[in-house]
C-alpha cells in the first residue's frame, strides 16, 4: 500500500474535506499535478477544474474547484479553494448549456471586456464538464 499524507480542502464557505489520502490530482496553473506522499514543498495557483482525491482504502472522490491555491508540505497538503463543490452535486445539463452560451458569446465578440469574461465563463464550464467526466470514469471503475 502506498504511503498516505494528510490533506485539507477548504473553501471560503466551509471545510470540504479533511483526512488521510494516498494521492491527490489537481489542475494547477501550469497543468495537472499528481501529488503523492513525500512530494517536495510546492505552492501553486489552481485553475477551475477537477480535484481528485484517492483515499487510503482506494476509494476515489472528485470535487470541482473554482480556482484557488494549493500548498504541499512534506506531510500535509492544503487546498485553499475560492469555492468548491462535490462533483456529484454539479449539474451536467446546466454546465453544458453554460458552455454553449459562453461559446456563442465568444463567437459574437462584442468588446474586449465581454470577450475576457466570456472566455473565463467558457473555461469554467469546460472545467465543470471535465470534472463530471472524471467522476463518471471514477464510478465506472468501481
Amino acid at each position, binding site marked *: 500500500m502506498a504511503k498516505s499524507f494528510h490533506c485539507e480542502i*477548504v473553501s471560503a464557505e466551509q471545510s470540504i474535506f479533511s483526512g488521510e489520502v494516498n494521492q491527490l490530482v489537481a489542475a494547477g496553473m*501550469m497543468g495537472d499535478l499528481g501529488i503523492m506522499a513525500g512530494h517536495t*514543498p510546492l505552492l501553486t495557483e489552481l485553475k477551475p477544474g477537477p480535484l481528485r482525491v484517492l483515499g487510503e482504502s482506494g476509494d476515489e472522490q472528485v470535487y470541482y474547484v473554482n480556482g484557488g491555491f494549493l500548498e504541499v508540505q*512534506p*506531510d500535509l497538503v492544503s487546498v485553499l479553494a475560492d469555492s468548491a463543490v462535490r462533483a456529484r452535486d454539479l449539474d451536467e445539463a446546466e454546465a453544458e448549456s453554460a458552455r454553449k452560451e459562453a461559446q456563442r458569446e465568444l463567437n459574437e465578440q462584442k468588446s474586449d471586456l465581454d470577450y475576457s469574461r466570456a472566455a473565463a465563463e467558457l473555461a469554467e464550464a469546460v472545467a465543470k464538464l471535465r470534472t463530471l467526466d472524471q467522476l463518471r470514469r471514477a464510478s465506472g471503475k468501481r
Partner: protein
Amino acid sequence: MAAAKEIKTQIGSIKNTQKITSAMEMVAASKMRKAQERMQASQPYAKQIRKVVGHVAKANPEYRHPYTLDREVKRVGYIVVSSDRGLAGGLNVNLFKAVVKDAKAWRDKGVETDFVAIGSKAGTFFRKYGGNLLAAKSGLGEAPEAKDLIGSVKVMLDAFDDGTLDRLYVVSNEFVNTMTQKPTVRQLVPLVTSDEDDDDEQPRPDSWDYLYEPDAQALLDKLLKRYVESQVYQAVVENAACEQAARMIAMKNATDNAGNLIDELQLVYNKARQAAITQEISEIVSGAAAV
C-alpha cells in the same frame, strides 16, 4: 392620591421599555446564532490560509516578498472593525479604548498612525477623536460579504506597498463566548510567525523553499493579498457575532433592571395608596366622632 398616580404612570412607561428591551434581546439571540454559524463556516479557510502563510514566512525563498520583510516603523495603519449599530453594551467603547491605547504607545515612540474604519460606529468615533482616517466603510448588514471589504483593505495594502505604512494591524472583537468578547489588536503585515497553529510541525533543515508555479512573485502577491482579505473578513464576521452577543447580554441586563425598578416602584405605590386610605379612614372616623 396625586403621588400614587404619578408612580403608576412611571411604572407603565418602564413596563413599555421593558417590553422593547426583552424583544430586542430575543431578536439578538436569534441573530447571534446565525452570525455564529457564519463565523464558524468561514473559520476553516481563515485558519488554513494562516497556516499556509505561516509556512511561507518560515521558508527561505530566493524571492522575498515585501509582506514578509520587517522594516523600520515610521507609520502604522489600523483597520478598526466595529458594529453599525449601538445598544450593544461596552462592545465598541472597549474596542476603541484598545485602539487608542495601542496607537498612543506608537505615538510616544514618534510613529504616525492611520486608520480605516469598518462599521459606522468606528467612523463616528474617529471623526470625533481626530485620527487620520484613510477610508471608511459602513452598512455591511448582518451577512457581510468579502467583496464589500476589498476596497478598504486595498487602500491599506496600497499604502503599505508604496511605503507610506510600515505595519498594518486589524482591530476587532474576539468571540470568546456569549458572555465575553475580547478586543484584540492583531498584526497583519509584515507577517508574524505564530506558533499557535503549529501542531504538526517537525524540525527540518533551515533552508528550504517551495517550488512555485507559475512564478514566486505573482503567486505570493496573490496569496498574501488573499490572506489579508480573508483575515479582515474573518474579523468582520466574528465582530458581527460579538455584536449580537453583546447586544443580547446588554438587553437582558436592561430587562432585568427594568423588572427590579418596577418591583421597587410597585412597593412605593402600594405604600402611598395605603397611606391615602389610612388617612381617609382616620378623617371619616374623626369626623364621625365630632358629630
